């Protein structure tokens, strides 16, 4: 076996070429890792909103909260269903909520640019049903007032979205922001929570809610709850575990990002692999004499083949590692994307999972193997006598 230090030294002899080739591979790995991290971030943010012991009830066939509507009198029936947990006062832990998307002026962009923000009208007990939500500045909204709290991802990004400021849900019907909440990185952090009555009367939805979220006695109580809700043919409702509801909501956007990223990466990878191939062919041609000498010394053709493939992989792995390191910087960045399921803008972050990092590195090394194989084969086929003759 030819020592790897031989390959490393050979790479160092031609620094510029080595860096140019590794740089190409680094950029490809960076793009690939970035796209996968964003796709994972989209999933993580949207799925984080769900709890396994929560169930969400929507109108059958609506598919999402935004297109669903449930009559108020059905809310009582849903909350009275066996399996719904009661709080210490004996009241059912459930919240009938109304969801509307409003166009709000975005700050920091072009003048007059608006984006959709989701407004959720919530009953007073909402924090009991969603214990993962915590007020981090200001205070909770007083029940029965035109006060609201906003998710921390909205703060400072939209007109009127700061504690103490006001914005209109309807002409002459301003709500005042009194607090900011965090929700474990979930999509709730990109929402406005106002009182149910304020939202309903501002949007002309009296007597209706969009969805009902209930806390169950245990995650295992879901199947029975679902069966009870869905057998009532008059209500025409469907129940879904909150975790799987949010999983479904994330699919379209996560898929879009990862398909776009994969297509881009494949094209770039093609170019970078050919670049690596060029470099390795040049290396083989230049070191023809060395290869001849090695063969004459008794190294086998297979040794030569492996050695050049290893050299190419080292080259690619260095590039891949640099690209990966650069992509990790993205975990500090935030991206606002339109979520296709709710038609509103949600702030996502890049999420680096071990699988993604490993996958990107393997992809980088793979470019090295593919790019190095043909040149290595050529090197292995060198005739020692010819090569040494010059």
């Amino acid at each position, binding site marked *: 076996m030819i020592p790897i230090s031989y390959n490393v030294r050979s790479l160092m002899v031609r620094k510029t070429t080595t860096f140019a080739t590794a740089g190409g591979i680094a950029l490809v790995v960076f793009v690939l890792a970035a796209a996968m991290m964003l796709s994972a971030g989209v999933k993580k943010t949207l799925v984080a909103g769900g709890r396994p012991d929560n169930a969400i009830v929507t109108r059958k066939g609506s598919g999402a909260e935004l297109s669903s509507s449930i009559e108020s009198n059905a809310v009582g029936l849903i909350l009275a269903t066996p399996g719904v947990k009661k709080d210490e006062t004996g009241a059912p832990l459930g919240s009938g909520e109304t969801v509307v998307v409003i166009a709000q002026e975005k700050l920091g962009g072009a003048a007059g640019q608006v984006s959709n923000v989701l407004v959720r009208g919530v009953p007073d007990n909402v924090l009991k049903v969603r214990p993962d939500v915590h007020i981090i500045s200001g205070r909770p909204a007083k029940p029965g007032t035109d006060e609201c709290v906003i998710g921390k991802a909205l703060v400072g990004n939209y007109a009127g979205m700061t504690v103490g400021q006001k914005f209109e849900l309807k002409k002459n019907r301003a709500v005042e922001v009194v607090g900011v909440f965090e929700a474990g990185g979930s999509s709730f952090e990109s929402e406005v929570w106002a009182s149910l009555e304020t939202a309903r009367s501002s949007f002309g939805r009296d007597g209706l809610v969009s969805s009902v979220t209930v806390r169950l006695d245990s995650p295992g109580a879901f199947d029975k709850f679902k069966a009870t809700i869905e057998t009532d043919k008059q209500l025409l409702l469907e129940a879904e575990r909150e975790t799987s509801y949010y999983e479904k909501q994330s699919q379209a956007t996560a898929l879009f990002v990862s398909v776009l990223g994969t297509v881009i990466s494949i094209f770039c990878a093609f170019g970078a692999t050919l670049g690596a191939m060029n470099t390795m062919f040049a290396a083989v041609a*230049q070191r023809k004499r060395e290869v001849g000498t090695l063969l004459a010394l008794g190294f086998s053709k297979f040794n030569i083949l492996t050695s050049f493939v290893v050299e190419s992989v080292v080259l690619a792995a260095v590039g891949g590692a640099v690209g990966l390191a650069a992509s990790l910087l993205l975990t500090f960045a935030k991206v606002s994307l339109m979520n296709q399921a709710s038609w509103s803008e949600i702030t996502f972050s890049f999420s680096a999972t071990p699988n993604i990092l490993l996958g990107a590195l393997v992809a980088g090394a793979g470019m090295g193997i593919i790019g190095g194989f043909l040149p290595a084969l050529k090197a292995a086929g060198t005739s020692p006598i010819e090569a040494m003759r010059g």
Partner: protein
Amino acid sequence: MTLLGIAARNIGRNKLRTALTVTVVAISTLFFIMLRTVVWSWTSASEFAAKDRIATRHKVSFVMQLPRRYVDEIAQMPGVTSVSYANWFGGKDPKDENDFFATIATDPASLLKVYPEIKISEPQKQAWIADRRGAMIGDSLAKKKGWKVGDKITLAGSIFPGNWDFNVSGIYTTTTTNVDRATVWFHWDYLNESLPARSKDMVGWIVTNINDPGASGRMSKAVDAKFDDRDLQTITMSEAALNQSFLGMFSAILKAIDFVSVVMIAIMGLIIGNTIAMGVRERTNEYGVLRAIGFLPKHVAQFILGEALVIGIVGGLLGLALGYPFVNFGVGRFLEENMGQMFPQFRVQPQIAAMAFLLALGLAVVSAILPARKAAALQVVESLRRVG
């Protein structure tokens, strides 16, 4: 022998390397064409937006509706030539609920008047207007679903519950990107008559043609002022502004595509520059000979730049030759049929093709500058001494 001739000969010396480099240039050109076509397909709607069309919707939220009578009030305003209206229906194909396409309830006769770019044959148009359950379907959606004129189709309503039956009365097409080719349009009356009293007589948005294209700003303000003291306020803007505001929501993705375009150009530059540099290094003593027999440093630099230029031209042309069929018949057809809302038209535009070709040329030359300068600066004695 001309300069370009020498460059071409030099390129032929290492055929494999040249072939690989030309392939890289061609692929990058193709990819550049594709990325820019994505952006064009997405953003050019405002380019096609009619200047004499303004759209009105609920002031606060697009999910909220306006009373139907607003339509008649707008129609009576001076300067208005025709008005149409529509409701988002949110229908799904019961056989494939995840397949998203737009379903919109509208008033057929006025819709076709307001949108002259929607092309449908006269008999089909009349048939659609006459049939209350008739639907007009975009050609790319019809092709994908296998729907033909005369078919009966059933859609499941997500906002309006139940199964809804339609007769396919006509298939439309369009050549502009502001109208997609994957929408099911049907009679607003059919939807309205089936609704409970509380949600009857409401429209999602109103589109108005005005007789003076220069007055769209003034007319928009006039419409909003008219309804300002009503229970439901409106916001009206020109079609171009509406498209812009919609694109604003996707700005992050557009930025990402721009960023990737730059990254890709960087990768391409590195690879071409590398190849040229390798060739120059191998031929160092030849350049020494050229200098010794009287060629000036600038001639050496010209040889190298000429070589790069040839690679750029060949690669760029190959990229265009691959790009046209690949985009127009491959990716384009797929995107138009499956993601027709986002990409109503996905065709290579001449200006994008020209840009991609110039980019290939420019990049090849720019990445050769450094090796060329290095070679030109070599001392004759020094370069003659070097071997291989």
